[in-house]
């Protein structure tokens, strides 16, 4: 509680002043997430010391970002869902189903020379449709999100396995112009991988939607106090449905990224992605009870996790040591974030 109220007060203070918009935005975001930024920096310093040039290398930065991208895109969607008072455990399964559906069912039956955009469309559609089912049953069927998405997790994975016959689907079995697809998703733009750009674009759009659009405002309202939102005339159920469709859509994007990255669709894609995404969102400061959270925090959360993984691998540490320390680092990062946030608010 005390932590919570600290945040509230701090937020209150920060929204007070508002000079130059861009600067203000930056200052607010960094201020609010000072602890995370410092934690990330510390982790990077450790990386630079232990792994030297291999860590500070630009290529390595790209490796980290590429690693972060898929989880990142899903985490942005998860941020909305959690702020809106929900949770989605089915993201990994939806990613798997989208990846399998777009690499098998639809594409294998297509005529030659179907444009690869069809594949993209299918993935996004399948993701959104799963989200729609989640959303409708949660909003209108009154099923607790945890249970509903757990059920979706089981069902979507099962369906993905049936469709793919549990085999890894390599791209390019059907008529679709796979070359175009691969070219697009694995291209470099200004020296940066398209996958990373996608993460950036999704984050920026997410930030704008959350902070500058009615959609985000409604999401916060619905998560913060659903009863008050309803009495204020907001259609809480519809907003809830939108939120799950949104995360489903993000899963579709993530599925495409994975398909391009691994050149396969598989029912094992996105295994335990839900945990990674939720962890990134929560470490980023979003309240699991809804009503409060930031996109910047989520992005930092995703980066912290993927940087830790990267450093451990660069240092050739065993997986067990990695998990032992990961726990400690997470705790340290959170404590740091708290201390810095409360200091910020008292000045």
């Amino acid at each position: 509680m005390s932590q919570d109220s600290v945040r509230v007060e701090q937020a209150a203070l920060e929204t007070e002043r508002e000079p130059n918009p861009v600067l203000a935005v930056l200052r607010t975001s960094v201020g609010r997430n000072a602890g995370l930024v410092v934690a990330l920096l510390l982790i990077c310093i450790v990386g630079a010391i232990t792994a030297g040039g291999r860590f500070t290398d630009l290529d390595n930065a790209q490796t980290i970002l590429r690693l972060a991208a898929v989880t990142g895109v899903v985490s942005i969607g998860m941020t909305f869902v959690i702020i809106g008072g929900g949770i989605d455990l089915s993201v990994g399964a939806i990613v798997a189903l989208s990846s399998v559906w777009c690499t098998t069912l639809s594409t294998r039956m297509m005529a030659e020379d179907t444009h690869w955009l069809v594949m993209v469309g299918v993935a996004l559609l399948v993701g959104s449709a799963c989200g729609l089912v989640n959303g409708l049953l949660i909003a209108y069927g009154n099923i607790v999100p945890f249970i509903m998405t757990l059920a979706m997790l089981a069902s979507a994975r099962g369906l993905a396995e049936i469709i793919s016959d549990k085999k890894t689907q390599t791209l390019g079995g059907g008529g679709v112009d796979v070359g175009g697809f691969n070219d697009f998703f694995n291209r470099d733009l200004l020296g940066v991988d398209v996958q990373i750009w996608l993460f950036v674009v999704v984050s920026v759009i997410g930030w704008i939607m959350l902070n500058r659009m009615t959609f985000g405002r409604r999401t916060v309202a619905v998560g913060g106090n659903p009863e008050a939102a309803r009495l204020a005339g907001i259609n809480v159920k519809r907003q809830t449905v939108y939120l799950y469709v949104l995360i489903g859509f993000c899963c579709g994007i993530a599925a495409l990224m994975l398909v391009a990255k691994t050149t396969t669709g598989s029912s094992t894609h996105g295994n335990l992605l839900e945990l990674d995404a939720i962890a990134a969102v929560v470490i980023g400061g979003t309240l699991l009870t809804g009503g409060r959270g930031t996109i910047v925090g989520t992005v930092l959360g995703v980066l912290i996790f993927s940087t830790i993984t990267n450093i451990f691998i660069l240092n050739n540490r065993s997986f067990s040591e990695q998990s032992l320390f990961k726990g400690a680092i997470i705790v340290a990062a959170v404590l740091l974030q708290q201390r810095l946030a409360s200091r910020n608010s008292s000045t």
Partner: protein
Amino acid sequence: ACTSNDSGGDDEADTSGGTSNAASGSNDEPGDKVVIGFSAPAADHGWMGSITASAQTVADQYDDVELRVAEGTNDVSVQISQVETFINEGVDAIVLLPFDGAAMTPIALEAMAKGIPVINVDREFDDPNAARVTVLGDNYGMGVSAGAWVCEQAGDNSDAIVAEIAGIDSLPLTQDRSQGFKDALSECGLDVDNRVAADFTVEGGEEAAANLLQAAPKIDFLWNHDDDQGVGVLAAIDNAGRDEFQMIGGAGSANAMRAIQEGDSVLKATVIYPSTQAADGIKLARLLVQGKSMSDLVEVEVPRTVQLYAPVVTADNVDQYIDTAFES
């Protein structure tokens, strides 16, 4: 790991396995109806999927076999419960690929005590009495084969940089493979310079490889434990534009063999880890229950241990193996 275990108290197990009956005519001729319970870990990757699929296929070939397949699981409690259910149902034999061999030992012992022969596949129990027959792949041998291949390729370059992408690190089989690899490498003065673990999935392979390539700017040889995750590993290698090294795979998927056949990728070889072990287990279970023996052997009983060989497949001999390889 224990390899040979000479008969201690297996006489009892034998009698429970049915009376011996010298095979007359083909073993494939229909016999008494046999109900076989089958349980394996979750089919969450190609090799394991193929294990179950081939078991099912073999069972379907026999009219006298009824196969009961329990949901694949990575939870020992659930798997124990599955075997309990088989015991309750009174199946004639149980073919068991345990998630964790040691953990499944007590329930297997119980089944044997109740007179149901257990055919242990791939991951070994830690009590020889817990299984009537054990069909083993050779995880340690797989590592040895891979290591020997690397040694052979490296010749007298004792500075060669060797990297390893393991499977799920917390599984004993991964430990065995890595140990074999290490032991074989040390024979020619090499060691593993970089090692990461993935999780047997394509996605995990991609992630692990992307990071590994970053960690090791130059590699000479790379052993990847599993061809399933290998698809992702190759994608990451492609992405990074690296081709200065030779890679050897594991398990022997059809994908990998095709790549070896084409010869235009870094993948030059793979070590087979047969995915037909469970299918062999089903066949043996049927023989056991019907009281038949392996007709190519003189021995009138089904042997206690069958260990499969882990050959290295290269461009030279790939034609020989590609037909029996599993599609991942």
